């Protein structure tokens, strides 16, 4: 049986990754994810995990080494943040196009410049369209659970895609908190050994990463898109199975006190829990407010989202990144697109919050909820704001 422990979430993430018995780990240090690979190297050094640990010279090489290792049929893991993730970017769409289920933890951090090591979601948002399955954890428990789920999702024969698990830098990575850590036997029961679709081995020579001429490129991209669309079913199945075995429920779109809510807040990542407190307080005062938490970012859960926000009058989307010169934050753009064709839909506002580690307290969420509830008419130019930016 697993047990309740106190542990820094980054270390717990590493423990969870190790429970999945990866064969090859390649990572490069960058704040704030560093404790994850650091602790994995400890686990390997202690002999608790039989894996090749490659101290690569860059993130680009980390993800490249994972590609090569995954190509041989090894279960592979890496972790990074911010600039490191951007340095990987060249390779990220290739990993998914090659259908290699590399698993990556991302300790989310702002993107330079100015250089800033603190938390927001701009790093992952630059990777939105790379074809990775993308999960967002709200706390330490979800981080651990998602790490293990990710291997099962990514390696599923109907998916064969890389998966990233997003945990907020510092806000999650550096916090010690209670976590139920499954034990090896439980994880082994949940996650079978990796059976690769193809392996680089002379017994059955094959080529990976071939050249796609225009004659097949549309078809190849369609195939990749179908794969990630289809992955949603697997995500849901894996989450159901998880709930059955571990008793913790996961949904692509989680709702908190949404029943009868006229105003909804929507968050991704660790700020959801602070927002819950705001909802509690507003509800105490009789304000009909609810909260929607997005756990699955790619594939985007359009259907589930529409269902959850349907009855609300207004919806405030909390983004943690800016799409410069664009329609607001990237999550906001997605939500609006999801609702565009709906005959009955809430009015949507966008607050871009907590950039580069700017703290958000309960009162901030209350303020935003009240503003959302009281905004009756919205001029297009007021649709989004960078919340709390001093004028």
């Amino acid at each position, binding site marked *: 049986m697993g047990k309740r422990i106190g542990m820094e979430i980054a270390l717990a993430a590493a423990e969870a990754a190790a429970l999945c018995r990866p064969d090859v780990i390649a990572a490069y240090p960058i704040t704030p994810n560093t404790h994850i690979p650091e602790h994995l190297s400890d686990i390997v050094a202690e002999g608790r995990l039989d894996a090749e640990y490659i101290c690569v010279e860059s993130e680009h090489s980390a993800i490249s080494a994972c590609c090569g290792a995954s190509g041989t049929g090894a279960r592979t893991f890496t972790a990074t943040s911010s600039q490191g993730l951007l340095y990987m970017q060249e390779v990220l769409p290739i990993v998914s196009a090659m*259908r290699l289920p590399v698993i990556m933890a991302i300790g989310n951090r702002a993107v330079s410049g100015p250089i800033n090591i603190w938390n927001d979601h701009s790093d992952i948002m630059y990777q939105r369209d790379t074809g990775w399955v993308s999960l967002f954890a709200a706390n330490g428990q979800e981080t651990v659970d998602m790490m293990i789920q990710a291997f099962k999702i990514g390696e599923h024969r109907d998916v064969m895609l890389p998966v990233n698990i997003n945990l907020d830098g510092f806000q999650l990575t550096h916090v010690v908190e209670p976590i139920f850590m499954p034990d090896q036997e439980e994880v082994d029961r949940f996650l079978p050994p990796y059976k690769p679709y193809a392996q680089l081995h002379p017994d059955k020579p*094959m080529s990976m*990463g071939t050249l*796609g001429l225009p004659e*097949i490129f549309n*078809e*190849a991209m*369609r*195939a990749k898109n*179908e794969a990630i669309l289809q992955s949603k079913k697997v995500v849901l199945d894996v989450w159901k199975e998880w709930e059955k075995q571990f008793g913790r429920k996961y949904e692509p779109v989680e709702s908190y006190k949404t029943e009868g809510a006229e105003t909804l807040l929507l968050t991704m990542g660790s700020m959801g829990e602070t927002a819950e407190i705001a909802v509690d307080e507003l509800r105490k005062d009789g304000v009909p407010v609810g909260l929607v938490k997005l756990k699955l970012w790619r594939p985007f859960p359009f259907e589930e989202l529409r269902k959850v926000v349907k009855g609300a009058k207004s919806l405030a989307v909390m983004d943690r990144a800016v799409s410069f010169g664009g329609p607001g934050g990237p999550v906001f753009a997605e939500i609006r697109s999801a609702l565009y064709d709906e005959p009955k839909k809430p009015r949507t506002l966008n607050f871009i919050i907590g950039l580069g580690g700017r703290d958000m307290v309960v009162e901030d969420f209350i303020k935003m909820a009240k503003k959302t509830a009281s905004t009756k008419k919205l001029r297009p130019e007021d649709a989004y704001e960078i919340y709390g930016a001093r004028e």
Partner: protein
Amino acid sequence: MTAKKWPETWQEVNPGCMVFRPGSASEYHTGSWRAKRPIWENEKCIKCGVCYIYCPEGCVTEGADGFFEANLDYCKGCGICAHECWPAAIKMVNEED
């Protein structure tokens, strides 16, 4: 097995565009690139095999009699074999001839 030149539908594209038919490039014949082709004069040939080893296509093969010939399905007519043939047993001739 000769496959279709292209997969017709997206469903036919292998996951990751992986290719499970090693050496299948040989389905494509590069012989059409050639303007000149090599001719062996076996009387001059000393069977050393320099033509074989220096062929970038790997299309020069040794026959049962120990003499060499180029597989014209693939020979691009680069002329290396003729140029390197020490006893000058290979000549490049125009395709039309």
